[in-house]
């Protein structure tokens, strides 16, 4: 296994990360690799710090007053908490899909090209092409191609979540972070999004938070098990779910916990 790990490139790398929300120690010395073009899953009971860790990867925690972060998060060879990193550039490279679909109160088209407009693009023809490519990439082009000017808020929930994926694809991020992207969706919509994730992993690096262990085992290549702000075990998904090294992991996997 050490062998395969070495061959595949680390897209991101978390190294000795500690995070405090005010006085609350939410992450304790967390380390983890994020491998390129693979799906990495974070599992663990509710409140263990999965979302917090995920939000460190594109510095969304910066928005919460009183948050203190120490340690390193490398993207390629650059520390994203370092001086040289522009946080707006970082978030264009490391995009995020949220737990509850949060399309903007704009038209479907305006949602998809929002990231391009933010980046300063104005060429209508180019934006039209990107919009079509992104909506196709999120498997919703046929569904919305005739109603691009309709408000995104009128879409059903699963299409809204796909639109949030599409608007991310439009800015071609390198890494896509997903925080329980299916928790608001029904089982069929969930399956579709999982299939979509597997397809996206061909071109993107994906990190997904889920409280659903079946989902982690179905879609991910690597899995990290977290408990009380610590990374208990990080390994091949197959290893985690068949013969975990840590007793705590085994207890969680076998359903003795949570």
């Amino acid at each position: 296994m050490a062998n395969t790990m070495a061959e595949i490139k680390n897209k991101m790398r978390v190294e000795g990360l500690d995070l405090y929300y005010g006085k609350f120690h939410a992450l304790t010395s967390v380390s983890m690799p994020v491998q390129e073009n693979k799906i990495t899953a974070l599992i663990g009971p509710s409140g263990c710090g999965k979302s917090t860790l995920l939000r460190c990867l594109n510095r969304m925690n910066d928005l919460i007053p009183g948050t203190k972060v120490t340690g390193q998060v490398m993207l390629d060879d650059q520390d994203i908490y370092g001086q040289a990193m522009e946080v707006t550039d970082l978030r264009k490279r490391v995009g995020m899909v949220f737990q509850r679909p949060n399309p903007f109160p704009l038209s479907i088209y305006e949602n998809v090209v929002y990231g391009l407009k933010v980046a300063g693009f104005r060429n209508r023809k180019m934006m039209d092409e990107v919009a079509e490519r992104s909506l196709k990439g999120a498997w919703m082009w046929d569904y919305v191609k005739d109603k691009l000017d309709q408000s995104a808020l009128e879409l059903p929930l699963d299409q809204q979540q796909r639109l949030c994926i599409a608007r991310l694809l439009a800015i071609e991020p390198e890494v896509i972070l997903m925080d329980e992207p299916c928790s608001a969706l029904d089982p069929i919509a969930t399956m579709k999004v999982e299939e979509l994730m597997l397809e996206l992993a061909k071109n993107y690096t994906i990190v997904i938070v889920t409280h659903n262990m079946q989902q982690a085992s179905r879609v991910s290549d690597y899995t990290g098990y977290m408990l009380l702000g610590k990374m208990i075990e990080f390994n091949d998904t197959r290893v985690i779910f068949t013969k975990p090294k840590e007793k705590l992991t085994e207890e969680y996997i076998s359903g003795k916990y949570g």
Partner: protein
Amino acid sequence: MKLVGEKGVRRILMTVAFSAISALLLITLFIINEGLPFIFRYGLKDFLLSSDWNPAAGKFGIFPMITASLWVTFGAMITGAPLGVAVAIFLSEYAPRPMMKVVKPTIELLAAIPSVVYGFIGVMVLAPFIRSYFGGPGLSLLAGSIILGIMILPTVISISIDSIMAVPRSYREGSLALGATTWQTIHMITIKASKSGIIASIILGLGRAVGETMAVIMVAGNSVNIPHSALDSVRTLTANIALEMSYATGMHRQALFATGVVLFVGIIILNSIASVALRKRTSKR
């Protein structure tokens, strides 16, 4: 130990509510009753569109006052609305939360300052300033606009903040997560999403400006004429009523009530637009 039972409380409150409402209705009816017959007798067109206001000669054209009221209100919008919206954006999106929690109620308190105080400041500070730097009498359309612009700030700021804060945080997060800056997020998402509330705040402020009397009497100069520049002295509809009511009799007195009816209609129109805008905002979520 119940002195008055549940039913008794209910009956008392109902009586109070009814008397308050009927007092308002009576006042409205009184104004309309006094003013409307005059409008019919004198002719709506002559009343609204003639520039000849000379009560001694039986001439009652309020066009100059209508123009003055419109200009002063417009001026208040130009000075007060951008400033108020800018302050609201700063307080809700940039200022630390504790700061907003202190500053917002303080600003709302400004609405409680009696308008004569605003007028006094206008007379003592603003008018001399205008006179020496821009010329003219100082007491002018410009002075009235600026004072009213300041007076509508609490309304504009307070309601704008409420509607900006009502924009779900998830919109902002979604925007920032796509690499947008704070300012891009504000003007591309937040302001768009709270637009109807912001517009309502401005219109409600203007309703206040149209009806304001004391401060305007003190700073606007009160000459009955159609202004040709912002430095001209003007008399608004409200000022006209307040200045002449004490000695007016007969037709003259009725003409002033009719002026009140015109104001009444104007403010009702403004407030209806504002409440439609506010309703649009709430029904969107």
